[in-house]
């Protein structure tokens, strides 16, 4: 069957020979990468921000090196580097430890790569937000006998949230789009499968528009969720114009 004779609906049909199922599968993969990478980055960011703010000189220097290096190198280069060199180093390490050749899960590697990049940016967003928390609130928590960890959990982190959300929301948007860079390492995320679909059907416009629509839908849904989270986080603050 010639490509030209296929209708849009045939091409986008869920089941083969339509490419809808493959596209959605790629989208699902992108979502997993974005979620995994973002939350890994957030965890690294909390640790990194605390390390920079409360750590000793050694920890502070290490964090500084991490955030500087990651933010200095283009994401694409980092991804190639971390993916190929990183997985290579890991499998050699595992081989040395006597585990033999290990196949590293591509999804995990992708999440790790995005998380490492996001972590550096999250560290800076969270560090700024924590510094914006009025000292008095942290002092009151200490004065009432909270342990350092409890101060962080009960006061510092919730109090810094309103300051962090605009920056963190930005990072989430970037994470969703950064997943597309992972196409270069052969992860079957949305951009890669779109290229395959477009290449084998020659319906370039159709499939790239479809992919664009999926990215757009993700952004629109994210906006709604972020607005709800921000409203909740700012509940204790007087609205300013």
């Amino acid at each position, binding site marked *: 069957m010639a490509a030209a004779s296929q209708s849009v609906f045939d091409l986008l049909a869920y089941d083969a020979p339509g490419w809808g199922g493959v596209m959605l599968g790629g989208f699902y993969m992108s979502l997993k990468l974005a979620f995994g990478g973002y939350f890994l980055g957030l965890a690294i960011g909390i640790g990194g921000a605390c390390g920079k703010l409360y750590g000793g000189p050694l920890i502070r220097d290490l964090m500084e090196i991490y955030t500087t290096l990651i933010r200095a190198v283009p994401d694409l280069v980092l991804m190639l580097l971390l993916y190929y060199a990183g997985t290579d180093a890991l499998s050699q390490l595992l081989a040395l430890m006597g585990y033999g050749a290990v196949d590293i899960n591509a999804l995990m590697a992708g999440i790790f790569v995005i998380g490492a990049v996001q972590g550096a940016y999250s560290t800076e967003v969270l560090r700024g937000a924590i510094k914006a928390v*009025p000292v*008095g*609130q942290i*002092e*009151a*928590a*200490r*004065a*009432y*006998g*909270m*342990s350092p960890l*409890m101060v962080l959990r*009960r*006061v510092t982190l*919730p*109090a810094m*949230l309103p300051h962090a959300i605009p920056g963190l929301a930005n990072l989430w948007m970037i994470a969703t789009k950064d997943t597309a860079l992972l196409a270069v390492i052969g992860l079957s995320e949305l951009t890669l499968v779109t290229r395959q679909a477009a290449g084998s059907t020659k319906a370039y416009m159709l499939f790239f528009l479809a992919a664009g629509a999926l990215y757009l839908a993700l952004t629109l849904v994210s906006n709604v969720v972020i607005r709800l989270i921000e409203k909740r*986080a700012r*509940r*204790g*603050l*007087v609205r300013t114009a």
Partner: protein
Amino acid sequence: MTDPQEAIRVTDLHKRFGPLEVLKGISLTAKQGDVIAIIGGSGSGKSTFLRCINLLELPTAGSVAVHGETIDMKTDGQGGLMPANRKQVERIRSRLAMVFQSFNLWQHMTVLGNVIEVPIHVLGVPRDQAIATAETILKRVGLFEKRDVYPSFLSGGQQQRAAIARALAVQPLAMLFDEPTSALDPELVGEVLSVIGDLAREKRTMLLVTHEMKFAREVSNHVVFLHNGLIEEQGPPEQVFGAPKSERLKKFISSIH
């Protein structure tokens, strides 16, 4: 040696910020039920003294005992002191309720949330019991209707009364007031003083750093005048305010009125 009847005993407290010695050896004992007013000009060290008691500032030398229990300190290797036992400090702090000049309520929690926070998370009181106690206290300071409001939507006077409610909720062994009315608009000072006055009259142990001389005279049973990091003069309020002996205190009192 130590007496549990003594709510707070401070012995020869020194505090140095770099080259500046702010406290030059202060000793003070508060027995249970004492209301001690600490007065003095700005820079006299009165707030620093109060903040050394719960170790928000670490003293350079000297010791603090609460209810007969001396807080263990060790040297920090740089000529100062640091707590030897973090758990002990946290336990003692949780029962030394502090009321701050700028309220320092937790902005992401409602008034009720602020009042039940320490009982639940630090003292381990069951949630429903903490809420019941908190509601009684909030009625007492006149904020029961505001219990679900966030602090930034309240007036300064209301915020400070909420902060006093937070302090009362830990059933404090002693209360530390650090200039509780200094950040308030003049018309809001009265409502806060009246709450503190009530607490003083029911013989709660308190140390009160204040600029409200008339109030200090009314509610305290002992007044301490600090000057340049030392106790210049102390005694019952009638004596300190009525018949000051030192020149500096005379000058300070006349400058206030």
